[in-house]
């Protein structure tokens, strides 16, 4: 699709600050309609449950992140584990992302932490609160150094 017509936006300041949002005549129903250009990210990082030899990935069915993978110039997918048979590994809350969209695949168990990976691990609230506190107390640099130490946890 060269661009997308979208409903709404009239009366908002988006049309003032986003010169790339344009209005055109609706050729079917008359009146004006806003059109927006495609988003093609340079890079997409996505975390999935598992991948097989072909690079096909199982990811959270409720997530729309595969749109970014399909639109990006370069897509890097990390997964919890590698499996032999993707069909057997597939749970009801998962969908498949074709390996044709994936440029690099990284085996990274726990790779979504400190955020959650549905069915695997939850949000690490304590860790996120530590980050927030460090930010509020203006010692983010020191916190990052501590946390990002090679071999450190997590």
């Amino acid at each position, binding site marked *: 699709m060269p661009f997308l017509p979208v*409903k709404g936006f009239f*009366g908002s300041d988006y049309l003032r600050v986003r010169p790339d949002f344009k209005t055109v005549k609706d050729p079917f129903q008359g009146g004006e309609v806003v059109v927006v250009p495609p988003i093609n990210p340079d890079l997409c990082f996505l975390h999935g449950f598992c991948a097989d030899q072909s690079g096909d990935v199982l990811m959270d069915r409720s997530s729309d992140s595969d749109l970014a993978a399909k639109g990006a110039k370069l897509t890097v997918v990390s997964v919890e584990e590698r499996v032999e048979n993707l069909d057997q590994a597939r749970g009801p809350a998962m969908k498949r992302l074709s390996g044709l969209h994936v440029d690099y695949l990284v085996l990274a168990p726990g790779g979504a932490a400190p955020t959650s990976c549905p069915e695997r691990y939850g949000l690490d609230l304590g860790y996120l609160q530590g980050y927030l506190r460090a930010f509020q107390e203006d010692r983010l640099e020191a916190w990052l150094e501590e946390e990002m130490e090679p071999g450190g946890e997590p």
Partner: protein
Amino acid sequence: MSQAGPLGPTEMMIHLLSREVRDKEVSATGTLSPIPAAACYLAQLTHAPQAKLAILDAPDWPFDGELEELFNMVQRGRVGLFFLSGAQIDQEANINLVAIGQHHRPQVRLPGGAGSAMVYLHSLRVALFLRHQSARNLVKRVDFVTAPGGGPGPGRPGGPTRLVTDLAAFDYRPDKGLALTSIHPWTTPREVQERTGFDLGLTGREPLSEEPGPEILELIHGPVKERLARVYPLFAEEL
């Protein structure tokens, strides 16, 4: 009575917002909306047993994907009620979810509109909520109009109906904007004015908001809380 549990701002907001939900209609909530979600659940247990709900992140979210199908339904005019909030809401019921300060040099860069620039214009009704009303977030004019207030007209089937905050309730009137309709029992007209960035035109005869009865509070602290815990566990714990 002891079963009913306390009545605070959260319970009052849930109670008042639940009134906006209509039976057999689709009511939907977006991200970070525990109070509206609770209001929808309460409505189903009271006046709207057949309300159809789309509570984002709930286990019974009625679609396969995230928001695409819901947003398509909104655009077709099939969603009766949507709940929106903002880092700023103004007298005209414009909402701001983009930036505090100038857009290109913001003091605070906010998460973004998340569909509200469409949802606000195409839902049949929108109920606004604000958990911690202050003169900084209920303002005369938002710094950035992410989605505009306004009544029905060409290209807009409805618009905002009400704003409910931790202090008061406001009706939206297309000619006047947000008009104070009642204040909650723990505040005074003066405090509500102090925590509002525009002139409320107080008369001194502002009525008190209608309190939820013990049976409503029992529902809120019982089945509503239980169901909410499956979507907003941390919020439900505090309820």
